[in-house]
């Protein structure tokens, strides 16, 4: 009996040491996954995708049925918007043309706002939700790199955490990870720069911290990425300010930002590849 327990005890001890070592290695901010990790991730991701696609089709079918019920009402609203849209489209085209001409005059080719898109579909999501991760079906061979921004049509949803050859893992903006920071700017008359850092799980809102108290930010103002630092382009929509609180010393204020994109309903996402390389950033 005692020998039996000794063996168990020893086994447990060895296991704990191995656990500590593995966790220690994993937690350090690694630039790249090792190739066995990449290979396994790609293989598991591939099979997961086979599961995901038919399930998605079935869910999509039922969603479509429920959408049909509201079609008439929605159509009315959309028709109203369509006229405004045409007007806006013409203006944007005109502005784009002007912008291109000015750029040519200045001799600049790429600016902070320019980016290429890599379309990807979601393979899976972390079920235990301690760290909000999703996996997409595009990887290094498609040009995805670590720390790139990931958006949907509505706005920013996260950034690339790690890349394999054919898949990539994305950390959503709702993650509480300390490294999850986005340099952002509030769109008002004056540009107010700051850092979106952290997520309030109770309010389900992003926390936009350390805005100097003399800068007035209001509810409803848009927060977009500033493109300073990292590889995010400028002008990706993050969300709208919902409430502003003064910090305890009254020197800075904290704004709560409601994400523009729905981070709980993700099927198709876009990985954003900035045209201007990092390190060549100017204000």
């Amino acid at each position, binding site marked *: 009996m005692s020998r039996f327990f000794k063996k168990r005890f020893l086994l*447990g001890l060895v*296991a*704990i040491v*191995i*656990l500590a*070592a*593995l*966790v220690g*290695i*994993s*937690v350090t901010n690694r630039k790249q996954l090792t190739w066995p*990790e990449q290979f*396994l*991730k790609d293989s*598991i*991701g591939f*099979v*997961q995708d086979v*599961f*995901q696609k038919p*399930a*998605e089709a079935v*869910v999509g079918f039922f969603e479509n049925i429920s959408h049909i019920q509201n079609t008439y009402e929605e159509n009315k609203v959309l028709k109203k918007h369509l006229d405004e849209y045409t007007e806006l489209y013409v203006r944007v085209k005109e502005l784009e043309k002007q912008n291109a001409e000015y750029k040519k005059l200045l001799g600049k080719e790429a600016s902070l706002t320019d980016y290429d898109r890599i379309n990807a579909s*979601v*393979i*899976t*999501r*972390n*079920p*235990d*939700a*301690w*760290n*909000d*991760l*999703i*996996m997409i079906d595009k990887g290094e061979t498609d040009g995805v790199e670590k720390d790139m921004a990931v958006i949907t049509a509505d706005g920013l949803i996260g950034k690339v*955490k*790690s890349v394999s050859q054919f898949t990539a*893992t994305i950390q959503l903006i709702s*993650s*509480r*990870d*300390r490294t999850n920071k986005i340099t952002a700017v509030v769109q008002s008359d004056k540009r107010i720069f700051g850092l979106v850092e952290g997520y309030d*799980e*109770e309010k389900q809102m992003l926390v936009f911290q350390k805005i100097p108290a003399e800068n007035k930010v209001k509810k409803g103002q848009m927060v977009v990425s500033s493109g300073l630092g990292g590889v995010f382009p400028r002008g990706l929509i993050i969300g709208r300010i919902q409430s502003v609180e003064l910090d305890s010393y009254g020197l800075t204020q904290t704004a709560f930002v409601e994400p523009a994109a729905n981070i*709980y*309903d*993700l099927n198709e996402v876009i990985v954003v590849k900035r045209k201007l390389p990092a390190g060549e950033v100017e204000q």
Partner: protein
Amino acid sequence: MIRIKHIVLPILLAFAFFLEGTFASLGAEWLYGLEETLVPRFLFVILILSAIFLESRLTYVYACVFGFFYDLMYTEVIGVYAFAFPVIVSIVVLLMKMFQSNLFVVALVTILGIIILEYYAYFMFSLIGYTEIEHDVFLRYRMLPTLAMNVIVYLLAFFPMRRLFLFLQRRSEQT
């Protein structure tokens, strides 16, 4: 010697593993979108049932392997679940040596197993710095809803799984 249970069990576990991911990504709106967080633990429930009704040693090995896959795909911290799954399953098996394996008793030890697993994950991810939620918030908004959902999963899985595992065990003993 390779027996039929050596083939069926990994296929079953792989199915539960992939189903969990797909379920999480398509059902995210009501699993995580509300204040409550419900964590599907299909794989873990089936591991416990397999350890009780099929063969515990074989299950430990697969618990470690699938825990490793789980870490690789979802937590990106290797070792968290690869360690937890076999250890907690073996605790459950140790407990089951004292009891009869009927629906009610197995339900109790399964619930206990999930409680240990959730607390362990909470502890580990607090340590690593992935989360900072308070204990009472964790208990109210994560532990209780998760338990409720997985008890339903357990009730749905118990009879078909027990039947399958006992059948596999008999077949393996015959040949």
